[in-house]
């Protein structure tokens, strides 16, 4: 008789339990999003919709929900691109040039402290800043604020990748006859490609899921989906099916990015 590999058996069992633990809320969200609102409140709850309906999706995609999602897309894409673009340049400088006055680590740590405070500590002054400038509740204000909050993360992640790129490779490129910008395009960017992908993914997740900034700096003219979700409460009744439908739609872009970039994200943890 073949001996049972108990270690492996329990390992797989553990992973299955963990998988259910992680995936169940997602399953339940999807399940809820296809139900009628009355069906949601039924006791005991049903594991598949008793009446399959796209009502909730229709509601979200016709009304403010669609606007909120597209606002979120604009803001998250804009802020991610700016944070990663500036982060790439800043991390190159941190990695390659000495800073006078501060050590490189000191200068970088200063930048990183921005991420250590809870954002709420900064938000009141930032709120007043935008209000004074008359830019409150605009895409611009949201994009700039999100980029500012995520730039330190981008710099910190990318600097690690820049540091691991030997200087001599860039110098070989200069000697071969390429300029600084040609070298950046030919050598530096391809070699930190996985770092860029991972940074894009992480910045995206932080910006896309963010609530407090979205709630305080937007909310009327420019409403992001995270700020719109709580609005789906009608009086005493919570429209769980609509909330679920919006959540399902909101998961999609993040899933796409994570699937595309997952092998690069793993690299960050393996480094």
């Amino acid at each position, binding site marked *: 008789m073949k001996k049972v590999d108990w270690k492996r058996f329990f390992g797989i069992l553990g992973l299955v339990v963990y998988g259910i633990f992680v995936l169940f809320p997602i399953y339940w969200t999807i399940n809820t999003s296809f139900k009628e609102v009355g069906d949601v409140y039924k006791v005991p709850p049903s594991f598949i919709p008793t009446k399959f309906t796209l009502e909730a999706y229709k509601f979200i995609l016709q009304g403010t929900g669609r606007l909120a999602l597209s606002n979120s897309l604009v803001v998250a894409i804009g802020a991610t691109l700016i944070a990663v673009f500036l982060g790439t340049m800043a991390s190159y400088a941190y990695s390659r040039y000495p800073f006078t006055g501060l050590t490189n680590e000191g200068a970088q740590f200063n930048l990183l402290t921005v991420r250590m405070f809870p954002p709420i500590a900064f938000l009141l002054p930032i709120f007043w800043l935008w209000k004074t400038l008359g830019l409150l509740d605009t895409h611009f204000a949201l994009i700039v604020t999100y980029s500012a909050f995520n730039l330190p993360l981008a710099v910190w992640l990318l600097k690690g990748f820049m540091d691991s790129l*030997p200087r*001599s*490779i860039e*110098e*070989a*490129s*200069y*000697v*071969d*006859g*390429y*300029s600084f910008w*040609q070298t950046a395009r*030919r*050598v530096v960017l*391809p*070699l930190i490609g996985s770092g860029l992908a991972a940074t894009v993914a992480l910045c995206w997740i932080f910006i896309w899921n963010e609530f407090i900034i979205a709630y305080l700096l937007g909310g009327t003219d420019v409403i992001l989906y995270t700020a719109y979700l709580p609005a789906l409460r009608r009086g005493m009744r919570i429209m769980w099916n609509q909330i679920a439908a919006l959540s399902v739609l909101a998961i999609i872009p993040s899933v796409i990015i994570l699937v595309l970039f997952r092998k690069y994200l793993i690299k960050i943890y393996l480094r």
Partner: protein
Amino acid sequence: MITVSVSHLWKRYGKTVALQDVSAEINGGSFFCILGEPGAGKTTLLRIIAGLEVPDEGDVFFDGQNVTLVSAQKRNVAMVFQDFALYPHMTVFENIASPLRAIKAEEGKIRERVHEVAAFLKIEHLLDRSPLYISGGEKQRVAIARALVKEPKISLFDEPLVNLDFKIREDMRAQFKLMQKEFNQTIVFATPDPVDAMSMADQVLILHEGKVQQFATVWEAYYRPSNMFVATYLGFPPMNILSGELREEGPHLFFVASGLKVDVTDLPGIREVRERKLLVGIRPEHLLLGDEKGAEISWDGEVLLSEIVGSDTIVHLKVGKDLGLRSFVPGIYRVAVGARVTVNLRRDNIYAFKESGESVIFPGRHESLFNTFKG
């Protein structure tokens, strides 16, 4: 081919001085060695010639034209880095083709040239591979191919043999020399290994702590070292140094060091030496063991140890009271520990230095002798 010259270069990194007033002239078509210990400033000098570094003071001239502030991109130099610096995301072919792509050469021409250089270095079979998955020796050949492919004004090699194993090193030395002739290049070669310099270089610049010790042909540096550092550094095993003093006894002049007494009355130039305290240097290869006929100086010695290095032998001896000397014997020389041997030396192979290290007596003083060395 151009003449590259550097004049009065200074470079500091924070508090450390990497180069101090370094001047040299590199003739077109020559094999030029920069020799020095790690930290002597070799790499800094190469980087300044390449245009990767700007000196604090001093200038770099390419054929009389001041290029000190011209960027590496525009200098048309080639450089082989110590870590080879291959582009890991490109194939070996693209790595070698890189300098040609920079000047936007025709595709056909690039192909032809890359294959030509690859064939010479015997790496044609690697062209489609990634540089990540080839051996150290192969990586180095790829790095050299990248330098050869573009017909540079000058090729700079930063300790390219250091990362290779012993056997490949031997082969590469011959290859470098061959390559220089074949591709008609001016090569500047930085190395900490005097054997590299002695086997390849036409001219050698010896650096120590950022200062030029000597700038000469290899043989000149060997026979006419400017100071004790050069004399001990150039040569393997290093020169024996005896510390002692000159003593006058009647018409005779003796050098006395812990029990040894050498008659140096007839040593040319000795009369002009003012100092009484001297350091005398004897190269291990000049100490001959056995019954030499007509040896001018002979001592009795006791064998302390005999070690075989490659296919030669280094014999450690005790001479006089407690004087340790090394003798270099070509070939395998078997001798028992404790055996008594006669140690012979020709008088004109003696080097002597002031206590400050400056040379006062060396074999190359005698012009006729020096000319025979030069061949």
